[in-house]
């Protein structure tokens, strides 16, 4: 079979399709979005009726995947790193229930925060939940790990995390496919206690999870994705490289063979014995990992402190934050620095901006006029394209924390006496995590104005559909917002005066108001028109 040119995300999706998956669940988030987008376009997925629509958020996605696993079928849940915070409750407890059908949790981290609010490393979560983690180093491994991950998950009845990072998720390379596996048939769990985490059962299950750690470690030792090259010419240092860092290591040595012992880790928990053997043999260790110093902290521990040098992100051998690249790895290994020329001083930054014609721009211009008399500092916002409303010329918002926080932070500020307290949230973000916060406002009759920017899509991640589409007013009514205080308008240059007036009226109303500026995203509109023209 000819190789397919696939992004890391797509390779994982294709791998799962070929490995007999029955359903994907997830919420869009850079850099994980392309996994499900690929499946939504895949003929193979459509013909085999593989579940592939988006969930409301990562928590509902994780739980739904667990439900599919309950029925014995293979399933995958996808999200970006901060999405796992949202899904943390079912995620942690899925380690306790275990899986029935193979369950893969694909989490894409974003070191250097290309499109994120932090750079948390999901391996911490995998370690926390005590489940095996797979960390592919290239596109082929992404594909192969779908097969391997399902097998591991079904062998031990345990969810398996696949941890991706931006540079793999969004880099394309050739992938060789394998023979396809059939889907599992629907089969209820054999053990009626398996998914019942009553304390008495949970205690028993936790002991079993602890006991399984030895087996997981044995699997890591035998894993085709971990390699141990302990014999070498030069023992002045031993190198441990995880995931993508292993590529950079190979890159900096190029055609030369690496003179030091090298351990490649792409499956966790780490095989302690081999790490110890490496430590014994070498005068020092250098630890290269994309993300936080997770392995470094594990290995360094208290006992090793001070005996032999262990170099990595903690001692400054590598920068403590930000993604790796071949230059950083070369420097960490003491190789000569390569560099072209400096960027000329006249080159200025070109930050992302709202698109020309974006409906959010109109909504912000009118909002700025409406709140002018109160000064800056009254508008809480959220995660999405409209976060760019912070930038000039709008300077319209004052916070961006996590999905849904605009509404609840505005409520807290209103409770404290801030007036006006305004929340600006996108329609998809509202569906993801805004509804419960709105219910809190209703319950307390909080004096807030909640602006739901309805561009009818999940814009920032490239225009995915979302679960509350076309139902915003009904949802707000159902949650208890008064009909007269749900106001909609068409955000457009000509309407600015009317829009400002509506904002002002709702600011003046003492209670919960919802304002919905509604106009389609210019990007999805362009795409739709192109499709229509074909």
């Amino acid at each position, binding site marked *: 079979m000819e190789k397919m*040119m696939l*992004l890391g995300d797509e390779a994982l999706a294709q791998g799962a399709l070929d490995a007999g998956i029955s359903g994907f669940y997830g919420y869009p988030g*850079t*850099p994980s*979005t*392309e996994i499900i987008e690929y499946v939504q376009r895949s003929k193979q997925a459509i013909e085999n009726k593989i579940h592939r629509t988006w969930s409301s958020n990562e928590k509902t996605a994780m739980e739904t995947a667990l439900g599919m696993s309950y029925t014995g079928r293979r399933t995958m849940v996808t999200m970006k790193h901060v999405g796992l915070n949202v899904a943390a409750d079912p995620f942690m407890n899925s380690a306790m229930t275990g899986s029935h059908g193979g369950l893969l949790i694909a989490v894409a981290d974003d070191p250097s925060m*290309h*499109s994120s609010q932090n750079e948390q490393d999901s391996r911490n979560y995998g370690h926390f939940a005590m489940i095996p983690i797979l960390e592919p180093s290239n596109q082929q491994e992404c594909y192969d790990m779908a097969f391997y991950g399902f097998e591991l998950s079904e062998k031990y009845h345990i969810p398996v995390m696949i941890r991706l990072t931006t*540079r*793999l998720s*969004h*880099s*394309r*390379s*050739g992938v060789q496919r394998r023979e396809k596996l059939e889907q599992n048939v629907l089969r209820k769990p054999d053990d009626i206690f398996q998914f019942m985490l009553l304390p008495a059962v949970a205690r028993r299950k936790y002991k079993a999870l602890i006991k399984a750690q030895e087996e997981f470690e044995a699997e890591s030792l035998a894993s085709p994705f971990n390699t141990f090259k302990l014999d070498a010419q030069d023992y002045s240092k031993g190198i441990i490289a995880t995931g*993508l860092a292993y*590529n*950079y290591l*190979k*890159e*900096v040595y190029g055609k030369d063979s690496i003179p030091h012992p090298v351990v490649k880790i792409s499956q966790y928990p780490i095989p302690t014995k081999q790490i110890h053997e490496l430590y014994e043999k070498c005068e020092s260790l250098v630890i290269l990992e994309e993300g936080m110093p997770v392995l470094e902290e594990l290995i360094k521990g208290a006992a090793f402190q001070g005996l032999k040098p262990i170099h990595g992100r903690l001692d400054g051998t590598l920068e403590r934050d930000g993604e790796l*690249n*071949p*230059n950083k790895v*070369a420097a960490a290994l003491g190789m000569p620095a*390569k*560099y*072209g*020329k*400096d*960027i*000329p001083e*006249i*080159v*200025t*930054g*070109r*930050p*992302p*901006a*709202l*698109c020309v014609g974006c409906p959010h721009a109109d909504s912000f211009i009118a909002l700025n006029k409406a709140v002018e008399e109160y000064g800056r500092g009254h508008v809480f916002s959220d995660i999405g*394209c409209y976060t*760019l409303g912070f930038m*000039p010329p709008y300077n319209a918002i004052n916070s961006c924390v996590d999905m849904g926080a605009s509404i609840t932070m505005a409520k807290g500020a209103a409770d404290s006496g801030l007036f006006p307290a305004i929340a600006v949230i996108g329609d998809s973000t509202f569906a993801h995590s805004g509804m419960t916060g709105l219910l809190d406002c209703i319950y307390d009759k909080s004096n807030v104005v909640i602006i739901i920017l309805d561009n009818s899509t999940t814009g*920032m*991640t*490239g225009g995915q559909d979302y679960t509350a589409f076309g139902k915003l007013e009904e949802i707000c009514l159902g949650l208890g917002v008064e009909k007269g205080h749900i106001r909609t308008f068409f955000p457009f240059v000509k309407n600015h005066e009317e829009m400002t007036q509506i904002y002002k009226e709702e600011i003046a109303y003492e209670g919960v108001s919802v304002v919905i500026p509604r106009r389609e995203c210019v990007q999805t509109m362009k795409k739709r028109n192109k499709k229509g023209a074909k």
Partner: protein
Amino acid sequence: MKKDIILAGVGGQGILTIATILGHAALKRGWQLKQAEVHGMSQRGGDVQSHLRLSDEEIHSDLITMGDADMILSVEPMEALRYLPYLHEDGWIISNSKPFKNIPNYPNEDDLYAEIKKNKNHKLFDADAIAREIKANRSMNIVVLGAAIQHLGFSKEEISESIKAIFSPKGEMIVEANLKALEAGIQIS
């Protein structure tokens, strides 16, 4: 043989199409490739880049090592300069001279051109104007590609084949426009 190319531009200017064509031509030769793209927030009118690595041997890193790039291929002059730390001293800058101004403090164009010309190997031309002249307005990116291919060791025939393969689903007229743009780019010295 190995070619490390930084493709540069502003979100929406069509650098990924260039990458697709070069990648297609490389695969036809039986080469390997890695292509790191930018998705997400930066695509909204921000600066974007793609690391395209083509080789007849195994490629390890998805990212190009600074100081190693054979070429910066840019559809915008200021964006060409943003990646200078990546360029090898013998490497080429092939850039459109037409600025894309979506920021208030865009620098003086002549200053940008002077900076580009400080590099030993460069080609700087108004690809937008050339594309307009040959009535292929939307193929500015292919003009830039045309100016680059001889320095990457690709023949006109190879790239033409890839353009045909990639654009044929969009119709004969679009294929023709892009072939004309390729030819116009090749003529730039």
